[in-house]
């Protein structure tokens, strides 16, 4: 189980590592895009509530492992200033069968977007910038 918030560039290859019982590995990378709603973007600043984000990301990874027949889930989220093309989030799933790999990967990215205390500040090419509209957090049932 790997769940990490980092200010260093993410090396996706370093996350790999299927076991001998695995038949599928799936690597998802979120990448900073050069546009948002039709406007040219030159970069993005990611901010996290670090301690809470590490706890929530670990919870999401553990839930993915509990809900899907996977052997390994690793998720890393970047913070700081990112240029277009840089990796903001990487999710690696290894599993005996592909169904579980796709299911767990999708679960982790959707939950990250819904629950991780991370915000992004978009820098437009014309010099303007703004906080990206997000998803309101709801009280956690357990905890």
């Amino acid at each position, binding site marked *: 189980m790997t769940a990490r918030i980092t200010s260093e560039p993410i090396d996706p290859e370093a996350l790999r590592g299927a076991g001998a019982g695995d038949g599928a590995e799936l690597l998802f990378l979120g990448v900073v895009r050069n546009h948002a709603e039709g406007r040219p973007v030159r970069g993005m600043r990611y901010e996290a509530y670090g301690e*809470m984000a590490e706890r929530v990301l670990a919870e999401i990874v553990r839930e993915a492992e509990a809900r899907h027949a996977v052997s390994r889930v690793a998720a890393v*989220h970047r913070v700081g200033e990112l240029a277009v093309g840089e990796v903001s989030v990487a999710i690696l799933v290894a599993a005996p069968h592909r169904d579980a790999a796709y299911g767990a990967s999708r679960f982790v990215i959707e939950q*990250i977007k819904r629950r991780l205390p991370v*915000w992004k500040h978009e820098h437009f090419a014309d010099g303007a910038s703004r*906080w990206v*509209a997000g*998803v309101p*957090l709801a009280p*956690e049932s357990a905890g």
Partner: protein
Amino acid sequence: MDVDILFFASYRDLTGTPGLRLTLPPGATVEELVRTVRERGEAFLHLPARPAVAVNHTVVPHGHVLTDGDEVAFLPPVAGG
């Protein structure tokens, strides 16, 4: 009792501060804390009346009762990924 308050992202921009320490009566709830913060005036009134609030890294309902030394974070809608 004293609690540490943190403002993240757009809430930090709205209030102009990353955080502050507040003294509250024992047994105060999150709801009372939010009201107290907003009553500090102008900039703090820009905060929503019912923001998502985490106490010691867990998002709680506004009825949650605070304890001395709690870390209370005001969390704007999230946009990770």
